[in-house]
């Protein structure tokens, strides 16, 4: 089913060298820098998971805050309110997110939503979810939920903060990126890109549109929800205004677009560049003038989009081909 390219990526020494080098980074950096990288990896995973639907399938879903919120708020609520082990919470939340994803995919297909309608309906769902979370005490309401302290007990989904969380996020980020590579090399990936480029034509030549859109949405939702659970465990505080608000989806979509939509490594590149930039700006300037880091950040996004509308990854590839002509043959 999967083309040889995927196994080649999996066997590639580059992949494992980069992963191994990344894994020892926490021993060399200060805890502040490890924190920044951990957040960056969270967004690498989220943007890559979103890419499956938004980049490959061309469906600009703004409902992903629903899946992050399910992964984070539901598992946190189950733990705090009922004492449910967070591993079980992770599975329950991921299953719920997958179901929500399937419902959204079905609505999209059943009502033949156009691109704009899909954006708007998913945005409406995200807004509704934010209102529900803020208004429902079980999920923490407007004040959020405080998780028990992280003691490093892996059986209770605790990884000891700092380095532990970094490694978990590194694993999740690598997993989602590899899922991207895998999907691009399976029939599903080809079907998705066909649907993105011309849905009617895809249907006419016998592509099962509903089935492939649903599978893509479920994979994306489940991955997003798992990252949400890991993220809330790292933050220790389930903040509804961060984890269940449409703003987080908008950020994810920005990273994916800036990096390069529909490419396996594009969204990861966008998140790896923009998140540390935002965090460093916040650290350096946030205390001086509130909002300045986002302001600069917004300008960077606008400049990048105006300069290279297809994203940074294609730009980097062009630069690479110019500098090292040898690499292009592989």
């Amino acid at each position, binding site marked *: 089913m999967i083309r040889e390219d995927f196994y080649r990526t999996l066997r590639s020494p580059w992949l494992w060298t980069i992963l191994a080098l990344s894994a020892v980074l926490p021993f060399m950096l200060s805890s502040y820098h490890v924190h920044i990288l951990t957040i960056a990896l969270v967004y690498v995973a989220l943007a890559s998971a979103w890419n499956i639907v938004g980049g490959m399938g061309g469906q*600009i879903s703004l409902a992903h805050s629903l899946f992050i919120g399910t992964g984070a708020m539901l598992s946190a609520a189950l733990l705090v309110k009922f004492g449910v082990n967070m591993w079980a919470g992770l599975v329950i939340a991921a299953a719920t997110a997958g179901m929500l994803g399937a419902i959204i995919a079905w*609505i999209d297909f059943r*009502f033949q*939503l156009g*691109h*704009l*309608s899909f*954006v*708007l*309906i998913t*945005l*409406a*769902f995200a*807004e*509704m979810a934010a*209102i*529900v979370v*803020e*208004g*429902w005490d079980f999920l923490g309401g407007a004040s959020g939920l405080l998780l028990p302290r992280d003691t490093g007990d892996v059986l209770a989904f605790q990884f000891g903060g700092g380095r532990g969380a970094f490694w978990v996020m590194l694993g999740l980020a690598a997993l989602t990126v590899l899922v991207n590579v895998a999907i691009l090399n399976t029939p599903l990936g080809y079907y998705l890109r066909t649907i993105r480029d011309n849905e009617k034509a895809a249907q006419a030549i016998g592509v099962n549109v509903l089935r492939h859109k649903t599978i893509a949405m479920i994979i994306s939702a489940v991955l997003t929800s798992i990252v949400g659970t890991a993220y809330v465990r790292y933050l220790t505080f389930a903040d509804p205004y961060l984890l269940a608000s*449409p*703003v987080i989806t*908008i950020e994810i*979509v*920005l990273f994916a*677009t*800036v990096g390069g*939509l529909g490419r396996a490594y594009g969204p990861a590149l966008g998140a790896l560049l923009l998140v540390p930039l935002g965090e460093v700006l916040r650290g350096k300037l946030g205390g001086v*003038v*509130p*909002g*300045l880091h*986002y*302001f600069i*950040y*917004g*300008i960077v*996004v*606008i400049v990048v*989009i*105006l300069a290279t*509308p297809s994203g940074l990854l294609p730009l980097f590839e062009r630069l690479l081909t110019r500098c090292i002509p040898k690499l292009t043959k592989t």
Partner: protein
Amino acid sequence: MSELWQALAQGILIGSTYGLLALGMGLVYGVSGIVNFAHGDFISLAMFMCLALFSAFALDPYVSALITVPVMTAIGALVYRFLLKPMVGYQFLMVVQLTLGLSLVLQNGILMVFGGQPARTPSVVESKLIILGDVVLRLPHLIAFIVAFAMAIGLFVMLRSTDFGRSIRAVHQNARAAALMGVDVGRVQVLTFAIGIGILAVAAALLLPGTPIQPTQGLQYTVITLLVVVLGGMTNFVGIMLGGLVIGISEAFGTIYVSDTLGRLVPYVIFVLIMLFRPQGLTWRAS
């Protein structure tokens, strides 16, 4: 019973301003195919300009509008010319992304200048009430209703019977044909975007008295505006005014009759249902 009339009246009055907000977006979408996700942040910008004018010169928001409308119109023209026009021909999503980036810039620019505390801009008419039988109306709402409908009618007349209005409609119906007939499509697009932003400045002044403002409110206004535009069938201007009334009324009913959380859900539920079952919008004739 009096509650019902109260909710209805309040909804209609507020809804008319929502309709006005959405007319700007519908006009731009019809002519340029751009959905501006920074729409709400432009409203914020206009509102905070009024606040600044009040703090500096003690100007009433209604008077400030005389200054903010031309300024915002000029800003709109510049934004279209230098940010949006270069994106023509690229994927729909890229323009959306660009306006999202713009929204970050505007929102945080406002935050940097004014700080994050909710602020109020008082007006002389702010606390005046008008009592009609059982129904109590706030004067600013009534002014908003009258001005919004006057502007809407003015816009219809402009579209129907001026040369500029006819060129807008021509570009809206078929940009290529309009260009072949000698309409300067680029100019029409810049001007409609500028007018759309200028209309926002009017709506901002109308909404301002009695409403606390804060820099982060932009996205909510964008979402409300999108709801209204979609309800109106995107480019049908009568439908858009009607959509504004529907959202205004459903919001008023939601907050009066249903508990707080559910009440805020009502407009979204209505939106999703209409989106699914009447995707062409509320009006029967598809535009």
